[in-house]
């Protein structure tokens, strides 16, 4: 997919120092992130990293304890304009169990000023979802499709999906993501979907936001991530020496060799190092592991990577 956004366009979602605490612990802390307009972004992080908390605050479902968030320049509020512009699909995909699909579409039509009934009916008909059965009797994949159809038919500008494919089998997952990609194609719809596995959502995402330990660890386009990370293979050295030379994200050592995942290696690499392309999965896993260790990296949060322009 193409580069998500131009530097001059304002981000669709912009959080600054956003935080939320539950009792004495932080569900999300010091989260600053920009989600580009018109792109499908993956919000990645292990369980408990604050993905749901972030999405709920963006959607206006929860209030921030610290910092601020703006969606298309608007702070979340109980106003019809804000609510109409933001779609939110909670993780458990809430639906009225006893109501059938037609009744769900009817309530969506009545509760939204902008409502694309034809598209929702068309999509669900194509997927052969029965309209006249209570949704409790539908399969998990069908329920997910119904919930997605409702969220998309609302025609929001920004669509937030909380772990939409986590509970789906691989086939339903692929169908769901295909529906999502089809709905977003050519509409300028901004999508932010969370997942704890990149592999689950890789096929549709062109931007990655990585949360770990309740902080943003990484925020970049997938292209930029791949292009500015390299895997280095070379003779084993003391870890301190390595980290002084490069920005090491993760180092694994065998007796003879060191394998380093590094960021933006400069030209000063010694001849003893072999350079390989890093793959997206490895990069993301490396950062997730880092967050879990409490941010062992010397460089701290990756402000080096801007969301809009890739590596600078």
């Amino acid at each position, binding site marked *: 997919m193409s580069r998500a956004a131009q530097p001059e366009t304002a981000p669709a979602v912009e959080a600054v120092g956003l935080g939320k605490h539950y009792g004495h612990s932080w569900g999300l802390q010091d989260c600053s992130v920009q989600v580009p307009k018109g792109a499908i972004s993956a919000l990645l992080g292990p369980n408990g990293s604050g993905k749901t908390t972030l999405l*709920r605050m963006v*959607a206006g*479902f*929860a*209030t921030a304890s610290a910092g601020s968030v703006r969606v298309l320049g608007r702070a979340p509020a*109980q*106003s*019809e304009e804000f*609510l*109409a512009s933001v*779609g*939110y*699909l*909670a993780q*458990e995909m*809430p*639906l*009225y*169990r006893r*109501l059938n699909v037609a*009744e769900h579409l*009817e*309530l*969506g039509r*009545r*509760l*939204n*000023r*902008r409502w694309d009934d034809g598209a929702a009916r068309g999509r669900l008909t194509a997927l052969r979802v029965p309209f006249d059965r209570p949704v409790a009797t539908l399969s998990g994949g069908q329920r997910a499709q119904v*919930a997605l159809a*409702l*969220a998309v038919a*609302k025609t929001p500008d920004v669509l937030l999906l909380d772990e939409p494919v986590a509970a789906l089998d691989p086939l339903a997952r692929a169908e769901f993501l295909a529906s999502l990609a089809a709905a977003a194609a050519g509409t300028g719809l901004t999508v932010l979907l969370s997942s704890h596995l990149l592999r689950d959502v890789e096929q549709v995402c062109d931007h990655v936001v990585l949360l770990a330990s309740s902080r943003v660890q990484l925020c970049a386009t997938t292209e930029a991530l791949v292009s500015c990370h390299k895997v280095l293979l070379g003779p084993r050295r003391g870890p301190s020496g390595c980290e002084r030379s490069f920005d090491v994200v993760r180092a694994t050592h065998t007796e003879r060799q060191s394998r380093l995942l590094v960021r933006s290696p400069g030209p000063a690499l010694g001849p003893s190092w072999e350079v390989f392309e890093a793959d997206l999965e490895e990069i993301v896993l490396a950062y997730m592991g880092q967050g879990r260790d409490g941010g062992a990296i010397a460089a701290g949060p990756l402000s080096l990577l801007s969301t809009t322009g890739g590596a600078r």
Partner: protein
Amino acid sequence: MNYLTWRLHRNQVVFAAAALVALAALLLVTGTRMAHDYSAALSTCAATRSCGDLSDELFQGDGLVLDFVTAVSIGGPLLLGIFWGAPLIAKEIDEGTHRLVWAQSITRRRWMAAKVGWVLAAAVAWGASMTALVTWWHSPENALYGRLGSGHFDIQGVVPIAYGLFAVALGIVIGTWTGRVMAAAAGVLGGFAAVRALVLLYVRPHYLAPLTARLSLGRAALPGNPWVLSKTLVNAAGHPETVTSTFGYVPAVCHSAVFKGPSALSSCLQAQGYRWLVSYQPASRFWEFQAIEGAIFVILAAALVLLALWRIERADA
């Protein structure tokens, strides 16, 4: 929202309407018969000048239906609170469907307004139908016993409507806070009973300053079936007697009468100027009391609804 509210709650409406029809049938049949018995008894006793004893004779065989109607009238608002108020918000939170509705382009305030508005309107409709029927049904009883006493006051007029509103609002607010239907239902059960009992015992007697009357110690009673709050023995000087020991207050003149039986004692005391000092609320204050108590429960209900709205607008979902 009207569509969704109706779609979600139509079963409750149908069930309540069916119950109302059944109760109406029962009340119409028994009420017609009681009214007939009463007027027949009135014409009979007028001939024999024994109408004062009517209350001892009439409707003795109707105890079961009287108790049943009283129980349903007193319990009705409680059932509204448990079956309509408690699940209204709690069920949505419990099942997570509030996240579906709140993700539509409708503010939480409008969502609450529609749901709460409709359930309160339904509670008024139910309460008004019930109280209209029971008020009519109860009119022979009123003529015999008055309608200010507890058990009579609470099932007719306008207060049953206000009780219903309060019970529903209580269920809504507890459900909003806990997000659990069973907790809200239990809260309604305890909270409604507690507030009703407190008002009945400690607040209602003071709505208006009670009247007092001195009654002779014989059988004389206040006319017009008032609500008697207290009855104290006072001496000729008007001071209440405190009973320090058995017959401790009995003046020396009447000591011999103590052993001749209660009627001899009371006529001796009567002769010495002893009277019953009765504090009471006259039956004519029925509608004033209805208005005051109705207002109390309506204001409580309104406060609870506002509390629930306040909570919903700030709650994290």
